[in-house]
Structure formats: C-alpha cells, structure tokens
C-alpha cells in the first residue's frame, strides 16, 4: 500500500496564500520566472489583506494571517473586483 506524499507544510501554506490572494485580492497569475518580482507582488497583496482584516501589516505570511485565510468565507473578492 502506498500513500500520496503530502507536500511540505510551508509549500501547502504558500499555495493557500497564493490562491487566496489571487481570488480575493487580485494577485496576478504568475507569469515569467522573476522570483523577486513575484514575491513583492505577493507581499503587496498580503499587506492589503492584512490591512483589510486589521491584522499587523507585515507583508509576511505569519500565523495570524494564515488563520484568517483558513476561515470559511464568501467567495466575492474583498477589494474592487
């Protein structure tokens, strides 16, 4: 019997965050391979989301921010769609 190998936890949280920010905060889908550019885009949207929920605005995916992302919610974007 083999079981699927779970992705490493941080990879999982990263995909949760990217999916959340893409659907709800207008994070553009990844084009090209410029990692630095990509991470600053993610950080910018993270700050927007942290500002919206009154969290500490760090631009970093801390535990508090991740907890909010995991809450059940409405699928309409939080910023001007």
């Amino acid at each position, binding site marked *: 019997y083999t079981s699927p190998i779970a992705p490493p936890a941080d990879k999982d949280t990263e995909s949760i965050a990217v999916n959340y920010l893409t*659907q*709800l905060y207008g994070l553009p889908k990844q084009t090209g391979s410029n990692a630095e550019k990509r991470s600053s885009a993610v950080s910018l949207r993270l700050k927007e989301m942290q500002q*919206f*929920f*009154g*969290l*500490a605005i760090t631009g970093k995916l801390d535990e*508090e921010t991740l907890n*909010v992302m995991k*809450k*059940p*919610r*409405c*699928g*309409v*974007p*939080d910023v*001007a*769609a």
Partner: protein
Amino acid sequence: YSTFQGDYKWKKHDLTYRIENYTPDMSVAEVDDSIKRALQLWADVTPLRFTRIYSGTADIMISFSVGDHRDGYPFDGPNGFLAHAFPPFEGLGGDAHFDDDETFFYRSPQGYNLFLVAAHEFGHSLGLEHSQDPGALMYPTYVYRNSDTFVLPKDDVDGIQSLYGPNTDFDPNDPKPTPPVTPNKCDSKLVLDAVTMLRGEIMFFKGGFFWRSYPLSATVEQHLITSFWPEIPEHIDAAFESPLEDKVFIIKGEKVWALYGYEMAQGYPKSLSMFRLPKKVQKVDAVLYDETSYKVLFFVDNQIYSYNEEKRRVEKGYPKPVEEVFPGMTGKVTAAFQYKGFNYLFSGSKMFEFGAHNKNLLRVLNNNYFLPC
C-alpha cells in the same frame, strides 16, 4: 461599509427572485423561509421589495451547486468559499450561488446558517461590497449569530441606504430594533461589560464583542462573542478566571457559563447560586479573582461579597461596602480584573488601579489603558 465602484445598483425598487434548486441539507420550506427572511432584512430598511417568481429569469437567481458551475468562479469543496453573488447588472448580475459541498442549517449553530450566508450574499446582489467592520453582516468571513434575534447591524444599514435610501413606509406602531453598532476601543466613553484574564491573555467584553489582548504583543483582536462561543449571550455582566479550576466563568443574570481554555466547559450554564450568594442577589456587576487571597470578589451594587472557592462559601463579615475594601472607589464598579499584582476596577469610562496587597488606590486611568488605539 463599501459599495461596488461604478454604478452597480438596481434602477428599480421592485425586484424578483427565483430559487432554482435546493440543497438536500434542509427541507424545501426551511430553504424558502431562510431566503425570504434574508431578503426581508434588506427590505426592512430600504424601499426595496422582493417578489418570488417560479419560472423564467428573475433579477436574483438563487442556486446551489458544487465545484465548477460555469460562471468562471468554481467552488472549492467543503469550507473555504461558502457562496458568492454578483452585483446588480444584466445577466448574472444579482445572482447568488451557494456551494452545496457545505452543510447548511436552518437554526443550529452547526455548519453554516443558510439565512446568514444568504443575507450576506444578497448584500452583494444589491450592490454592497465587503465591509471591514468585524460586526457587519458584510464582513467577509462567516460568523454564527442567532438567526432568530439577528438585527441588521448599523454598518450594513448605512451601506444599503447609501444606495437606495431608507424604508419610507415603516409602521411607527411597530418600531424596529436599533441596529447594533460595533464597539470601538478608541471610544473614550466606552463602558466595558466585563474584563477577565484567560491563560495570560486579557479579554475585554462589550456588547456582542470581545477584544483579546496579548500583553506581550501590540495587536488586539476584536471578535464577535458568537464566533468563538455561540452559546454565550451578548452584554454579559461579569467574567473571571479561576486558577483553581482552570476555568473562566462568564456571568449574565442568574446564569453562569464556563470556558476551559477557549472551549465551552460541559454542564453549563449553571445557576448563579453555585457561588452561594444570598438568594436576593440575582445580578452581579463585576467579579475579580484575587490571587493574593484565593478569593472571588463579587461586586453587587456598592457592596462586595468574598467567596472562598475551596470552602465553597461566602466569607463571614460580607457583604462589605466596596469603599471599605477599596478605599477611594466610590462609583459603581462595572468590570474588574487583577493583573501582575494590581487590581483594576472599571467604573464608567475610568479604570482605578489598586495595589493587590495593600489595596491602596494608585492611579485613575482611562478605560483604554490596556486597549491602545
């Protein structure tokens, strides 16, 4: 509150809705009633009126579906996104879709209350975006609230009336309940309902909300009480943490609830008589757990009862006047807690700091000393 940018509002007040299909979680009658009451929330405060049709295309088409349902916004299985709706527009505009991978309920705090989810989505159908007010119905994350007593919060009323104006034909003989306002910790006139420690955190209760403060961090979180504890009522009277029992007791009237950590303790609510206070005491104003004497001090009007937890009885010689136990404390105590060797008694919008050992009045502070703006 926030509204969609651009002119996303209905140009007419008489709108139609149609329920295209049903979730197997609830009876047809329960779904119908939940949808009807959810729309009525908005009709009560605007000129908008909703008429149900059973065929053809309505302004607001309501459906339950799972995964990809061909609108470009696939659902994501259980939890996550519960539903979505489109702002007023042609075609899809106004339509509300519910993810049937969720389990919807009619009244229970379990799962997701369809009335609450629907009322939120219909806010979008009418032109509202998400609100940053944690007490608003249009706040993006789901929070359980009692759907029988639910009143549309003021933030949502202000939002929808910014689009459509107020309801002009309400019956003055049938006044509607006042829309609740989310308390603001920066309000210098804020009078707290209760304050307690909870395993190192400080909890400040006001109305249907509580603030959660981590002493070692600058962030203070505000939450609806029901988002943590659906059973706990609003506007509690008092709360205190008992290190002996490792529980936080929450009191309203003659009922006592208990938390074990952040979980509800079993077997509650119990009666206030568990503290062996005289029968005439049917309401307490504040409670302070004194770790220097392991006594629980109950503030009732201008008197204090000292309860010995180990012996489970009120101490002899009590009640005593508050001012005898805390010299200088003249006003009515509305909340109290002990923190790092000091007793803090709230009276109105002021907080009185006493030494825990010598009971000397040290300072009179503003109520938001622990709730920085």
